[in-house]
């Protein structure tokens, strides 16, 4: 049993399918089984794997009580569909090529060659290290924007939301999702640079359109 590699999209898909008709990993109440699988997952599953996301958010709400949930935490290979293996542990965290022996061997006198090689590698390591800050941390956020009622002009609401401009904010696709009683909510995607735009700021600016917007929620938040 198992879900494959839970750190990979394929493993998350297995989890998603498994949870399509289940509320919990085992049985009908939250247990250590859910905690075991929850802890193997690095981040909330993406919005398209909505069963896994629903389960993830639900188990997250038990964060404070996790020690007191029933059952005993077992290895990941004890949970999930019978015909799938668990390969989550197999991926080593540090596949770094940076684990170079920087000190070389002190036994013998270093030959010219060895010295040159070491210095080359040191330079490589340093340049690799210094390149890292250039990667900008970004997140993909799915927002739910709710109108006051079914008479709200959703086209105008969307216009207002998209009119919000900021450095590090890019609006993506959107759709209208019915929520009952004839009311539709606007579900809109955006990509933000983490250190420039936060959900608080988005919420402030979106809910400022008081005539159209009743509230805003973060439906999904994924690091990219």
């Amino acid at each position, binding site marked *: 049993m198992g879900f494959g590699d839970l750190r990979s999209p394929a493993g998350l898909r297995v989890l998603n399918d498994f949870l399509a008709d289940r509320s919990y990993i085992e049985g009908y109440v939250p247990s250590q089984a859910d905690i075991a699988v929850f802890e193997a997952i690095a981040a909330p599953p993406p919005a398209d794997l*909505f069963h896994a*996301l*629903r389960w993830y958010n*639900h188990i997250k709400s*038990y964060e404070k009580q996790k020690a007191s949930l029933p059952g005993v935490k077992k290895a990941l290979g004890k949970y999930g569909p019978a015909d799938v293996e668990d390969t989550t542990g197999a991926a080593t965290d540090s596949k770094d090529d940076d684990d170079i022996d920087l000190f070389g061997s002190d036994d013998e006198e270093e030959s010219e060659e060895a010295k040159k090689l070491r210095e080359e590698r040191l330079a490589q390591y340093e340049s690799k290290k210094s390149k890292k800050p250039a990667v900008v941390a970004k997140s993909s956020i799915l927002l739910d924007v709710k109108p006051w009622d079914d008479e709200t002009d959703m086209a105008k609401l969307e216009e207002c939301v998209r009119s919000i401009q900021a450095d590090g904010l890019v609006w993506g696709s959107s759709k209208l999702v019915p929520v009952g009683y004839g009311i539709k909510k606007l579900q809109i995607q955006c990509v933000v640079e983490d250190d420039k735009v936060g959900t608080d700021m988005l919420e402030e600016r979106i809910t400022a359109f008081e005539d159209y917007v009743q509230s805003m929620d973060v439906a999904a938040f994924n690091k990219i």
Partner: protein
Amino acid sequence: GPAELELLERLLGLPAGNKYGVLGERKVPVLQTNNGPGLTGLMTIAAHLVRQAKKEQLLGSTTEERAVVQQWLEYRVTRVNGGSSKEDTRIILKDLNMHLEDKVYLAGNIFTLADILMYYGLHHIMVSIT
């Protein structure tokens, strides 16, 4: 109606002994009290029983949760009755399916009276489609 409320009493661990009646054409349940007219209405009586049993968390534990529980109690009473047409039933199931897409329980993460009453109300439909 009354049968459902008696089931709820048992679920809540309340002692039996309450007397129920029905009112009018739509058979609205009435809880007879010792003094005066009874307490009328399914969701009113159900909420009262929950408080009597001191299980208020079944009504929700935050303002938002309480509102969502109320929303589904209202939904149950206004949209889900024995005589729903096929089309109405389909709409109800679709509403429910959509609402539950990202939730485990109707009010989100906790089991509440909303789940109980919607379950009782939809039981006969679910039985007929499974």
